[in-house]
């Protein structure tokens, strides 16, 4: 009797499972049907007529911030009727996914949080040029490719982020953080996980040369902790476990501050690095018309306003940042992006080994 009952339990479970498989399968079919035109490699005729309104789908792999990415997605969908399938992750995760999908790429547009990484993709000849992008001439020239292979639609600056409850007189210079009063109280993001932290470290080194390592040596001596990606480095400062993030991304600090957290940011007087966030179309894209429209949208007035609302620096020189320091107000090092791109690997290795 008991066995029969148990058997019934099992049967019930299995039935439940099968029912759900059914649902799942139906969902899959719908999904495949939806994406089929986008994915069919060997479509003999390109059905897209340039005069026609856009349709179909667009696969975007985008580095945060999530709220902004979602708003851009919604705005673009409303404007063009194209359905955006978005994968969100850090720059590293996006690159990993692209590497894994290498033999059969699914991505059309890639949005990263690190310029050297995008330069790397460009050097490998993976990006589709789109020099005729609308408003591209208004972009800040240093941040984007002059041949139109990538477009930095936004940027963030790096600064010293601190907890206002724990810090009364914030440090004003990068060297200050090596002083005894900051011993054991400072986090720095891991450059192997945070593209912007890498931009800061390699940007600083590209300006001051090999001697620049003395700064990071003194950080290590003073117990500066290397702590994950940007948010992981910032969180302990919000909760009060640490007092300061060196090379913290500013938009996260502004966002936390606006929410009411006891957080503020200073840009050291000797300069900092502004880390552009580029977007580009992949050569392998099967929806290049949609992809081009997406790039146009990123540089449009509408999307640039969304960028400013997310406390990021707009990529266009004619758009003002909102409730934060503007590009012109932040002193920067004399950075050499080419050197940074070539040396990012060795800098990351040396830095992470120093701080391990």
């Amino acid at each position, binding site marked *: 009797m008991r066995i029969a009952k148990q058997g019934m339990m099992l049967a019930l479970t299995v039935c439940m499972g099968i029912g759900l498989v059914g649902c799942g399968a139906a969902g899959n079919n719908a999904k495949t049907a939806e994406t089929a035109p986008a994915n069919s490699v060997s479509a003999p005729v390109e059905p897209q007529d340039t005069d026609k309104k856009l349709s179909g789908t667009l696969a975007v792999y985008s580095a*945060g911030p999530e709220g902004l990415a979602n708003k851009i997605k919604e705005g673009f969908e409303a404007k063009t009727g194209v359905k955006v399938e978005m994968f969100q992750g850090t720059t590293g995760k996006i690159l990993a996914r692209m590497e894994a999908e290498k033999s059969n790429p699914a991505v059309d547009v890639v949005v990263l949080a690190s310029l050297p990484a995008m330069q790397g993709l460009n050097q490998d000849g993976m990006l589709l040029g789109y020099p005729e992008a609308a408003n591209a001439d208004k972009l800040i020239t240093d941040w984007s490719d002059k041949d139109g292979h990538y477009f930095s639609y936004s940027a963030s600056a790096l600064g010293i982020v601190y907890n206002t409850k724990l810090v009364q007189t914030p440090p004003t210079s990068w060297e200050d953080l090596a002083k005894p009063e900051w011993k054991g109280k400072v986090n720095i993001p891991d450059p192997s996980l945070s593209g912007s932290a890498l931009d800061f470290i390699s940007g600083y080194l590209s300006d001051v040369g090999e001697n620049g390592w003395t700064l990071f040596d003194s950080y290590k001596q003073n117990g500066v902790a290397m702590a994950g990606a940007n948010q992981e480095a910032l969180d302990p400062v919000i909760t*009060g476990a640490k007092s300061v993030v060196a090379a913290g991304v500013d938009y996260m600090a502004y966002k936390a501050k606006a929410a*009411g957290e006891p957080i503020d940011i200073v840009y050291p007087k000797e300069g900092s690095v502004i880390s552009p966030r580029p977007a580009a179309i992949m050569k392998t894209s099967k929806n290049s018309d949609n992809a081009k429209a997406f790039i146009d949208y990123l540089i449009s007035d509408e999307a640039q306003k969304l960028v400013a609302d997310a406390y990021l620096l707009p990529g266009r020189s004619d758009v003002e940042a909102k409730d934060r320091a503007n590009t012109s107000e932040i002193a920067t090092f004399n950075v050499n992006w080419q050197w940074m791109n070539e040396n990012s690997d060795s800098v990351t290795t040396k830095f992470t080994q120093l701080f391990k």
Partner: protein
Amino acid sequence: MQTNSFRSYTWIWLVLALLLLGMLVLAPLMMIFWTSLYPDQNFDLQAPLRNIMQSEVSQVLFNSIWLGLCVIAATTVLAFPLAWIMAKTELRRHKWLDIVLLIPFMTPPYIGSMGWMLFMQTNGYMEQFIPAASALTPAFFSFWGMVTIMSLHLFPFLYLLLRNSLLQISGNMEEAAAVHGGGFFYRIRRIILPLLLSSYVMGALLIFVKTIAEFGTPATFGRKIGFYVMTSEIHKYISSWPIDFGKATSLASVLLASCLVMWYIQSVISSRYSYRLVGGKGTVSKYASVKNWRGFVCWFYIGLLLLASIGVPYFSIITASLLKLRGEGLAWGNLTLQHYADLLAPGSESLNALLNSFGLSIVASTIAVVLGTWLALTVQRSRTPGQKLVDLFSLLPNTVPGIVIVVGLILLWNAKWMPIPLYNTYGMVVLTYVILFLPYTVQYVKSSYGQIDPMLLQAGHVFGGRKLYVLRRILLPLLLPGMLAGWMMTFTISNRELVASLLILPPGMKTSATYIFAQFEQGAVSMGMAMAVISVGITTALLLAMSYISSKQKVE
């Protein structure tokens, strides 16, 4: 003597099992090795070797193994007394404890670690209550803190295996020993421990493998204390620029090799020390009564364990999910339920993620149980080389870090020549979960099967039962507890699976785990913690309901 009534079909099943495992498990791993040999589009046999030499592998390998051994020791200390209490004393009536003890295991490891960190860190929750506790902080943020966190996460696993085996050891044997004058400790030493050894070694191996393949705790806690292990190194090469599959796959093969050595040791021990415990005769179990101080000691132990494994991390998780401003710390005015309201708002992304997770895990665990039971029955007591091979392959997913298999799966299922368009669909996610968690069912069912006396099946046969009848009326009912345990385990783990989901989910789709992870990345820690509370809460409630129903049926 014919030991198995299915002998005539055995080889067909064996070939089928090998084919299936070859496609599901081996092929992705082969893709990985293939890639590691083609670092720059050129075939290079020495590439993996060179990679291993370059990347200070010995230190991280040592770290991984040392961590694994320490966690085995600590989980043993935690799980053994509990298993004994729950199998041999009156307290075994309290079935709810089994479910509650699954909570640590259901908690995503990186969430549990976060909980501990929030509790113990400078200006953390503990210090806000007891400022003097700050003296403990440096001691906790060390290797031993990491062992503690991981052991408190993994011990329920060993506990379940040990308790199930203890229940199988029939009271007759102990009574026989007692009649012949064996004292309590004599019985433990000469009867219980030897009979338990095989299960224990299996459990310890799984704990070891789980520990060195774990990514969440090293990624959160380990990174903070500067303790690096194989998985964090592999993950680094796979997920941060510049991507280097060659190095990652080479390191993965070292990890794989060390796990295979452990597997070999385990299989030698368990084949030498496994006994048939479930016979045809009725068993009378004897329970020790736990009155007065004994009961107090038992409950005290259970209470302490629950406090450490659930109390501390969940205090932090729940608190963090209720805080308006995390910078303001603990204060009544700083608490809000708003995050939960936002999370469960109809049509919201978070609610969809939650439903996605449950749907996917139910489907995946059901498929995994069916497949796993079949494979375990094929493996039986793994005597022939073919069975040993099936055993090895079906355990592989547990031996290779999840992220490595996942990359292999992507390489395989997204290859140009792949005719089945599974990649970037829900089906792919289900497939990945099934492959990743197949070893659980296989282990549980195998462990149940190993203790069934073949004479039971022969008896069924002798009395005219045909093969299917014997399977249906004798074998399956006896295997059912193992299958159920496997189902629950797969369900709970796939419900919180993170690493695979991060890489394999179709764009635009989220599960509760990736939602939580994204919230942490975006700085919305409270929303992430609220999601953790809700998804673990629902899982626990479901399991409690299930066990309540099944216990009701037994009473009738």
